[in-house]
């Protein structure tokens, strides 16, 4: 049982002895053409933003006012902006930040949402208070809340971690704690449905500990909906970050992120279209590919789909 941690799949999987659970999932995943395409595109984007700067070695913040507003050329494959900064280097650097913010904030929101969802779905006594808390968060006007949090904690975090890391922690935290509510609601609903099924009853009657029931039987069965909200979460986190940057509350203005590049480029759309084209394409492709991947993962993880 050394691979116990890997086989967290529901009992249904165990009934196909010829293949391991993992390869089974991969098989299912591959059957979803959009998911495969999404995986390829997403891998490409991740590789590009992390490996790209090693190949295209122009510094993203280097100003060259004499070479401003240039169309794509060999030296500047994506052209330059109105201060002569290289757009390719900017898109790559921006991608690192946007992806890091998106994924980290999504993980945080997912963790919070799943925790609240499972607890309130599984434990009757917690259901009321936790769901009211969720309602409370849903009712809060998010943008003002974000502004207040940022105003209150910006200076202390900046002092503790420096301007960039401090703002990163703050933004991830702020996006994370304001976007877990939908996950929590979906998970709660799924948990309510799953926990009334016979296999949970069987596990209970066999004297299994509550936390093991949750981890071994409930969670794997609600994983599909968690995955879907995860993929949507990345997209909304990237977009929330850009709206914060737009309000001047995100990263410093010389710190490129996809959202900021897109916003800054909007005025120059007719002059140098590549300024909006590439960041916009990067955001759309990331969001789209992650959505398709989520779709495919959900199919692959669905116990009923495996049975077919």
């Amino acid at each position: 049982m050394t691979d116990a941690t890997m086989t967290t799949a529901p009992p249904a999987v165990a009934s196909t002895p010829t293949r391991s659970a993992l390869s089974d999932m991969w098989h299912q995943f591959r059957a979803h053409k959009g998911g495969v395409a999404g995986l390829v595109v997403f891998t490409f984007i991740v590789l590009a933003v992390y490996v790209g700067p090693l190949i295209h070695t122009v510094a993203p913040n280097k100003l060259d006012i004499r070479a401003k507003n240039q169309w794509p050329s060999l030296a500047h494959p994506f052209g330059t902006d109105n201060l002569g900064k290289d757009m390719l280097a900017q898109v790559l650097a921006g991608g690192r930040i946007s992806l890091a913010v998106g994924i980290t904030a999504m993980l945080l929101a997912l963790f919070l949402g799943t925790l609240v969802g499972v607890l309130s779905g599984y434990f009757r006594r917690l259901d009321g208070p936790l769901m009211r808390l969720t309602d409370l968060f849903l009712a809060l006007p998010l943008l003002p809340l974000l502004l207040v949090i940022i105003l209150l904690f910006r200076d202390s975090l900046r002092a503790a971690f420096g301007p960039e890391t401090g703002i990163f922690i703050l933004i991830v935290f702020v996006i994370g704690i304001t976007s877990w509510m939908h996950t929590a609601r979906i998970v709660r609903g799924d948990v309510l449905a799953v926990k009334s099924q016979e296999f949970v009853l069987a596990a209970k009657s066999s004297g299994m500990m509550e936390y093991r029931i949750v981890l071994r039987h409930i969670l794997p069965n609600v994983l599909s909906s968690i995955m879907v909200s995860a993929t949507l979460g990345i997209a909304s986190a990237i977009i929330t970050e850009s709206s914060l940057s737009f309000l001047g509350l995100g990263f410093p203005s010389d710190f490129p992120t996809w959202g900021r590049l897109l916003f800054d480029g909007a005025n120059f759309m007719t002059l140098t279209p590549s300024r909006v084209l590439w960041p916009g394409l990067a955001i759309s492709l990331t969001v789209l590919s992650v959505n398709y991947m989520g779709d495919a993962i959900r199919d692959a993880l669905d116990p009923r789909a495996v049975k077919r």
Partner: protein
Amino acid sequence: MHKLKLLLAGTAAALALSGPAAHAERGTDGDLKILFWQAVSTMNPYLSGGTKEVLASSIVIEPLARTDEKGELVPWLVTEIPTLENGGVAKDLLSMTWKLKPDVKWSDGTDFTAEDVIFTWKYCTAPDGGCAQAAQYEGVKNVEAIDPHTVKITFEEPKPYPYSAFVGPQSPIIQAAQFKDCVGAKAPGCTAANFGPIGTGSFVVKDFKPNDVITFAANPNYRDAAKPAFASITLKGGGDAASAARAVLETGEYDYAWNAQVEPEVLQTMMAAGKGRLEISFGTQTERINLNWTNPDPALGDKRSTTEAGPHPALKDPAVRRALSLAIDRDIIVEAGYGQSGKPTCNIVPAPEAVASTKNDSWCLKQDIEGANKLLDDAGWVKGGDGIRAKDGVKLSFLYSTSTNSVRQATQELVKAMWAEIGVDAELRNASASVFFGGDPASPDTFQKFYADVLMYTNNFDGTDPEKYLAEWLCDKMPGPKNGWQGQNIPRYCNPAYDKLVGELSKTADLEKRAELSKQLNDMLTEEGAHIPLVHRGDQSSFAVTLEGVRMNSWDSQVWNIADWSRKK
């Protein structure tokens, strides 16, 4: 009949400045479409100091005298400008007398008299009124009527430059009959009057939707029967600077859009459509970087950025302040962000010409990286391993704050790159303009709080006399918790010699001597490094090519002569 009316109208001084005579008939040119990218919230400038409100209201209500585009006073509702020479201003400088034009009528048909002028003063100086333009009436002791068309203003002490009350778009005359029940604390409650003031101007408010659209109609009782050429105005608010400029220059949906603060190359591409033109005029706006003379360290809590916090650890060194200015290439900043609408400057009082100093242009206008580096080397600031200079544990690393605006963010990046060449690091921050200039004492991001090391924005002074403006750098004008963060001495500059010189200026009546003193004060601020002036900014608005008669004016409202505007046929 028409000819007779025209002849009568000829007495109005404004006609001398009018457009082609072919259009000289009221309401023949249809609708004038105006776009303000900040919407107008009230038509009463006494209740809101915002430029957009002052501008919109100046279409309807008018002051006694205006300043034309050359910076010269022109009589508007009066027959002449009172001066010492013509006896309008008393020899002891304690009073002045305005003679109102006899034939001016309010848009409701009643006579415009001295009582209205007196009422306006009472309205703005009433206790609990919260008048936004109270500064215009500062030092006024009494306003009285000598006869129905003569007004005498008495001052508390000799006033060498008396053209403030009832002059310019900030202090227009409102109708006593309409506002008589709206004095003091009741002022904001008079919605009908505040949204639709009765005026003497060429248009009247027909419909006012706060923060959205205002429609105006030609004033049937306007003193010049041939004007205005337009029958109505639609003033739409909202959007942003770029889309407003585009609506005039590229798509031609509007005739006039105020304040086209957009990158020059973007405007160029818009103008390629041939639908509009840009008009630029230079007033007194200077984009400057304020240097914080006090310590903004967050660890100091409520004391930060006040005199109690002590001097700034790095910026207290004059060499640092001078080096920061030397390192900046103002030409590049103008080229990247302002184009035609900006000029490099080293003065906080860049205009009018008579008071604009040239003393510091020699060292300050030219970038001198070498000189700046040498200055810092000599002062003992040594470059560390990260390329940033430090001395006694204090790093030359500054938090650089401004309002959110693409031109400002571009300037920030350029300045940061220039400072990097002399081993100075900058962390950029920007706050939404409505917060930054909002003046909310609870927000840490306002420009008055100055919770940063350096801070960039533009300010200017109204009219052509800089006395009041230069008095902003007096020691006691520092914003702080004691005065609710009011006060315009943003850098927290304090120099007794400066204060003394300002006192001297306020007692001097001779214009040449005043100009001399103003220049000295301006030079003192630049030399000591209270701030780093960057760009003398012009006002830039977009107009449709078919619009005629526009005389872009930085000293007064941009629509000051809207009665003369007409459509090219």
